[in-house]
């Protein structure tokens, strides 16, 4: 009963992930209620009854697999979420086809400024429809209570405002043309940039409020929603020229040139032409995302940390579920021997063990993925990064399948090598 309730709750969270379990349950029901079911299938029913009959081990295996599935899925999803955050700005800025930058740039926040004239050089390359400058920098905002908060400041081309936020919740993008105008992201407005009252309450920043960016007055004219940055700082949009005023004085201040290719242009070839003509690096959006992810994968310990947890999940699965499943087989070895003595072929016994492994694997996987999905849903409004694409469900399923297969192989070997004469050993 409890298991059914949990399963149903989990179904509501991630139905796709549970299709496999649904199938198993439906098939099991067919076995259960159809009196004309063939004997081979009845032996499967006996296998399931043997499995469920030993409740302590049955739940032990399922819980082991559930935790393995949960750990593998949840930690991988957080890792994916973190990696997605590293190039969140690229995801938000979808209009340009190509990003042009200093050749030494290693990832999106590795800012090596360009000369403003570089945008003109890029525009002159054959196949470029338009090219606009973009400023991206980390500036300190002074809040009304006197504290400072580092913010990502994005400076958009003054004329076109290309590269603006994907979703504007309040105000309009064109409002950036007003004096000292900035648009801030809603999470930053309600969080790190919010005014903290003496009683501890936070008052979100709203349109019309002001703050100081590097001693320059900035007025909020809009609220937007963007992908959270890797370091979770607030994101502030303004015009390129105003951003260069906000930014500390430097000789060069342009971070990127955003390029749109003319229709029919091969983007890779255009990147090559831009590089050849300007000596700058040019990447398509996907290439730049990959470059960023590769940097974080290579130079941070994030993959190792998460990989360790995922491997631990796998080991937990093998150690707990695998061992419990093997012990379950050992507990039932006398009955497998009895079935063998009574004429059950190796094939029937093999199917029985595989079905038992598949059953616990399916339920354990479903519960684990369901729990991971629930955590993802519940943490949607928190700082936790969580991304669960369908591919990750497949990876998790493959890992659980591997655990079940490893467990089943040991049990299968035991059952297949079993001498039916064991039935006469009275211990």
């Amino acid at each position, binding site marked *: 009963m409890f298991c059914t309730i949990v399963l149903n709750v989990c179904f509501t969270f991630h139905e796709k992930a549970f299709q496999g379990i649904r199938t198993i349950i439906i098939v099991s029901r067919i076995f259960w209620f159809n*009196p004309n079911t063939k004997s081979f299938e009845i032996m499967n029913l*006996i296998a399931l009854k043997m499995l*469920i*009959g030993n409740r302590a081990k049955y739940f032990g295996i399922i819980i082991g697999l559930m935790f393995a599935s949960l750990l593998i899925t949840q930690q991988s999803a957080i890792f994916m979420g973190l990696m997605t955050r590293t190039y969140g700005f690229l995801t938000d800025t979808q209009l340009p086809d190509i990003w042009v930058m200093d050749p030494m740039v290693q990832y999106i926040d590795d800012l090596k400024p360009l000369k403003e004239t570089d945008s003109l050089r890029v525009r002159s390359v054959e196949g470029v429809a338009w090219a606009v400058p973009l400023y991206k920098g980390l500036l300190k905002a002074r809040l009304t209570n006197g504290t400072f908060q580092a913010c990502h400041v994005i400076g958009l081309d003054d004329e076109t405002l290309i590269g603006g936020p994907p979703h504007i919740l309040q105000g309009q993008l064109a409002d950036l043309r007003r004096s000292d105008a900035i648009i801030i992201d809603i999470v930053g407005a309600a969080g790190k940039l919010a005014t903290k009252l003496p009683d501890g309450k936070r008052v979100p920043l709203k349109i019309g409020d002001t703050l100081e960016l590097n001693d320059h007055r900035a007025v909020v004219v809009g609220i937007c929603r963007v992908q959270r940055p890797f370091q979770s700082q607030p994101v502030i949009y303004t015009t390129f020229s105003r951003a260069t005023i906000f930014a500390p004085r430097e000789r060069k201040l342009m971070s990127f040139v955003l390029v749109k290719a003319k229709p029919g242009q091969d983007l890779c070839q255009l990147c090559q032409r831009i590089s050849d003509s300007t000596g700058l690096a040019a990447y398509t959006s996907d290439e730049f995302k990959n470059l960023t992810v590769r940097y974080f994968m290579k130079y941070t310990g994030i993959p190792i940390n998460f990989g360790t947890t995922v491997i631990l999940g796998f080991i937990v699965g093998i150690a707990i579920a695998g061992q419990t499943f093997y012990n379950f087989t050992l507990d039932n070895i*006398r009955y497998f021997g009895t079935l063998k003595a009574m004429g059950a072929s190796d094939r029937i016994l093999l199917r029985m063990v595989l079905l038992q492994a598949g059953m616990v694997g399916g339920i354990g996987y479903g519960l684990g993925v369901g729990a991971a999905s629930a955590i993802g849903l519940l943490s949607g409004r928190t700082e936790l990064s969580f991304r669960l694409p369908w591919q990750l469900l497949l990876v998790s399923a493959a890992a659980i399948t591997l655990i079940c297969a490893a467990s089943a192989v040991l049990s299968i070997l035991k059952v297949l090598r079993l001498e039916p004469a064991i039935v006469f050993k009275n211990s």
Partner: protein
Amino acid sequence: MMKKATVVVRCKGVTKTYGTGSTEVHALNGVDLEIHAGEHMMLVGPSGSGKTTLISIIAGVLGQDHGECSIFDRDFSHMNRYEKTRYRGQNIGFVFQMFNLIPALSAVENVAVPLLIQGVRRREAINRAHEILDRVGLGDRSLSRPEELSGGQQQRIAIARAIIHNPKLIVCDEPTSALDHETGHKIMELLCEIAVGTDRALIVVTHDARIFEFADRIAKMDDGRVTLVTSSFHYLSDKKKN
């Protein structure tokens, strides 16, 4: 009285050795034995005399090292694994000391298992199992799990399971040793009533002298050999004299 009927089991010079080198144990040292249809044969003897090894070989769950052991003129050692399993499933019924009923299955399901293994449809197998349960007096406990039944009731179910597919040979390993005297006696009466038939043989391995009277013949084993084969009447008479 010795019946001149079809030979069900014929063992000739059967040997079996466990282990190698210093751990070598000669369980059977050339066993010769014949069991006929309609006969109830008991294998008796002290522990370690080779009784269980012999019925394991007769039942095809263990291979002999040398010699011949055939059931209805078919020797398991000449069959492949699949044929052996199939032949065993169709022709031999088992009753074990510890019953070996699958705990997760009800009585009727346990009884139906041999038929299900052979491919009989579930409804037919269950109907047949109900009939057999009625014959062993447990028709009203068909839905009970083994854990809900007494030892005697479990052994009755095991007997029902052993005969449901109408095997030609039924082998019983110490069927009464886990039961009290009265229940053991009833179990043997039941076995003799429903398991012995003109076309099948019953072999019981036991060291429970209280049930020797149920046998047609008794084969005494010692040190891996059959040292005496006689009628139960003579065996018990000789025993009383000694």
